[in-house]
């Protein structure tokens, strides 16, 4: 630790590396209250009207909220493991925020329980769980070894066990290092990230199948896991950039996380905007070109009526506009532009998850789509707001940066020459 000792001691003594507890208490209380109210509203509006379609709509949008929340967490987990794997030096100062977001994978497991319970007990969100609906469906009969409730539950338990274990261990290595200063914890985290990424890739791909793709169980796409990954990593980068910018606004980390780090976060944001566009375009394009009904039906529903407008809005708002906005170097180095871009992109990410999940809810009599309304907003905001409320508490619970990262020097002196 010889070379970096001086910096690290001073880092721990600084006053601006912790979030103000009072502000955190207020903010998290507000967010948790909004979340609770929204979940309550969803329950009241969704379950008490007695209209099966409205209940389904509420459940689907709650599921959207859950997917947005866990998307942040999984995206951050991928980033943390990648940063460890590539021995990143520049990211020492920003890694803790990714770790905070990652560590909230367990509340997401709890947020998911209502979706599963309501699907098992009432009208299922997954049509294939409904024995009446799938009766005589040859495709379902073929897929039954995979699409049955028992295996579905086992798979979900396996995913969450693996993720909670990875998130917990990686978070613990990092926070233990704050206390002990043991540099070998970094090596341990690196080792875990190697097989961790392998487990992560397989579990998230199948989780994407289970949570999104099998909502329309006739449809399939080999790309779907990558699509899920691309969207969520991008969203996690936006969330962490926004957190850091808000901390900077409140006078935290001001001369630690400099414009140089924001510049690199901006590059990553830009990179994932393009990567998302590449993946989602490739998926769409191959299906469009081959024009096989069993594949096009998924897009057919999402291109028609109001969903078609959203599809166009997504290509503009989630790719073309941010692509242009984040292209000039001064913009990637501007906190204001980055704050705007991160909120904008998270908004469009949320809209995309709606666009993926919600078209599965339609008027059963006429097959007409049911467009988004306030119920959807409340239902999705519930889990997201609860997640953010817990996240604020998590952020306030410890130092905002790792205190004894062995490569902290590199991060403190990080610079982009070009």
């Amino acid at each position, binding site marked *: 630790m010889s070379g970096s000792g001086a910096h690290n001691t001073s880092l721990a003594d600084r006053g601006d590396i912790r979030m103000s507890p009072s502000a955190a208490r207020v903010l998290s209380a507000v967010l948790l209250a909004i979340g609770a109210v929204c979940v309550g509203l969803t329950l009241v509006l969704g379950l008490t009207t007695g209209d099966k379609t409205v209940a389904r709509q509420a459940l689907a949008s709650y599921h959207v909220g859950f997917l947005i929340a866990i998307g942040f967490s999984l995206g951050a987990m991928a980033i943390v493991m990648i940063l460890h794997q590539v021995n990143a030096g520049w990211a020492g100062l920003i890694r803790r925020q990714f770790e905070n977001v990652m560590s909230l994978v367990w509340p997401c497991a709890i947020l998911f329980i209502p979706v599963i319970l309501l699907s098992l007990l009432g009208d299922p969100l997954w049509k294939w769980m409904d024995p009446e609906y799938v009766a005589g469906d040859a495709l379902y009969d073929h897929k039954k070894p995979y699409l049955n409730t028992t295996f579905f539950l086992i798979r979900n338990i396996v995913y969450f066990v693996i993720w909670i274990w990875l998130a917990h261990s990686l978070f613990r290595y990092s926070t233990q290092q704050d206390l002990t200063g043991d540099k*070998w914890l970094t090596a341990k985290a690196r080792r875990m990230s190697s097989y961790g990424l392998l487990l992560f890739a*397989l579990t998230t791909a199948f989780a994407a199948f289970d949570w999104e793709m099998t909502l329309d169980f006739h449809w399939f796409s080999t790309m779907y896991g990558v699509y899920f990954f691309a969207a969520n990593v991008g969203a996690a980068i936006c969330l962490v950039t926004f957190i850091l910018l808000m901390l900077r606004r409140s006078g935290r980390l001001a001369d630690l996380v400099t414009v140089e780090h924001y510049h690199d976060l901006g590059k990553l944001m830009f990179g994932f905007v393009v990567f998302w566009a590449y993946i989602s375009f490739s*998926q769409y394009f*191959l299906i469009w070109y*081959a024009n096989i009904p069993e594949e096009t039906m998924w897009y057919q529903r999402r291109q028609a009526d109001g969903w078609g407008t959203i599809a166009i809005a997504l290509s503009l708002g989630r790719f073309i506009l941010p692509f242009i906005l984040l292209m000039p170097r001064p913009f990637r180095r501007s906190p204001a532009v980055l704050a705007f871009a991160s909120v904008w992109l998270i908004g469009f990410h949320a809209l995309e998850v709606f666009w993926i999940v919600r078209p599965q809810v339609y008027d059963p009599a006429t097959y007409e789509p049911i467009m988004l309304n306030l119920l959807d907003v409340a239902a999705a905001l519930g889990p997201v707001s609860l997640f953010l409320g817990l996240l604020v508490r998590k952020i306030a619970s410890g130092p905002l940066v790792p205190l004894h990262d062995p490569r902290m020097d590199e991060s403190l002196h990080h610079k982009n020459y*070009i």
Partner: protein
Amino acid sequence: MSSFNPDERTAQRMAGGQDRPDAERPRDPETIDGTIIDDPSVRPPLVLGDRDFHSVTETICGWAENPAPKWWMPAFLISSAVSGIGTLMILYLIITGVGVWGLNSPVMWGWAIVNFVWWVGIGHAGTLISAILCIFKQKWRTSINRFAEAMTIFAVICAGTFPGIHVGRVWFAWMLFPIPNYNYIWPQFRSPLLWDVFAVGTYFTVSLLFWYMGMIPDLATLRDRALKRLHMKAAVGPIEIALGKIRAFGYGFFALGWRFSSRGWLNYEKAYILLAGLATPLVLSVHSVVSFDFAVSILPGWHTTIFPPYFVAGAIFSGFAMVLTLLIPARELYPGMKDFVTARTLENMCKIITLTGLIVGFAYAMEFFIAWYGGNVFESEAFIIRAIGPYWWAYAIMFSCNVLSPQVFWFKWARTTPWFIFIVTIFVNIGMWFERFVIVTTLSSDFLPGSWRYYAPTYVDVLTFVGSLGIFMTLFLLFMRFLPMLAISEVKNVLPQADPHGHHGSESGDGAGEKNGKEGAHG
């Protein structure tokens, strides 16, 4: 360097002195050559052997200036003889027709497309190393980027020959380009084969520009040194003087009047990062378009949405393997190269091979799962026939070489032992060739079982492929002989001496930098 007054050491070396031998480093089981360091607080050195700027220039230029190593001429003769065989086979094909190949219904695409995709894939490593790793600020890439880019360009040249000759009537190949002609026949813009022409053409152009532009300062160094040698050896004889003049003129011509001025370097760095930015999407787009050749069709086993990223990962996988296949022998054969291409460099490349191999394995798994899950009988049958049908052996080779063999790199010994890495990279090269073979031979069992036919290549197929290896090696040997194999100026940039602030030095200087950064943000 731009000065014409050789210092004493240079003069001695130029007077026939040998470059210093490889630093005698005992192989340490833990750190190998001192660069495999687990300690996260230590950054391993990028260049070994206590080198200064001068010795970097001396060593790298020496490879191009000293008499060719003994193995070079035989290797060159063999390679060019092999490439001659390939050229004869192409001539035979053009004169006789594509019937000399093993193609027949239902396998209308055979080795030509396999070879094309294999070579284009190999051609991905260079741009990935120079562009993407440059954007990610991976300094270890500086010692291999020139080498890998050269390999990229030669691989794309080999790739480009196959679509050109597989059209059958080669004299109509120009119709691939949107050139107006008297019949008003335009290319079919909805065909991915046409997109290939543009994708590969753009990739080749940008890669070539990137490679060449990065080489300009080093060519200028070689030019200056060639002139110096001319001055020093003025009395040797008329032939050598003539050769020296040609040499100086050649390097000088391509150095475009580079004078090592700071204005030049400023433009150079701007151009480099711009080309890196332009080349980065190309790394993804080229093989995505190549994958479209297959994936836009509605053939079982070909039409699947994961193809674009899966092909890109496979391309990087095979490209890195080919770089290592060439780099490991070169590292042994050229004195001093181990100082630049350290064990750490090889280890990093092995890790990328394992990563991309796993991505490829992930794609195989997804394909198999969805082939079953999709419920399309033709799709799942296509995959079953791949795995246990008449080409089961090709599938087995593909799977074991691509997914299993790189798993050895989870063990430190395997990824730090050059001869072992070399063997694994050969496996990877073979595996990736067979991956394309497996995809193409899916055609042999098409929708009508009555027309199923086992596809086998003819000797012309085989020798054309071997010939393309010869063309590749010939070009590569010429590159090793005459051009700076490592990026001299970039390697100098990562030497500790190049950083005036030092790693742990002057905090004040860095603090000022941070302040500037903040001002920039507010302003």
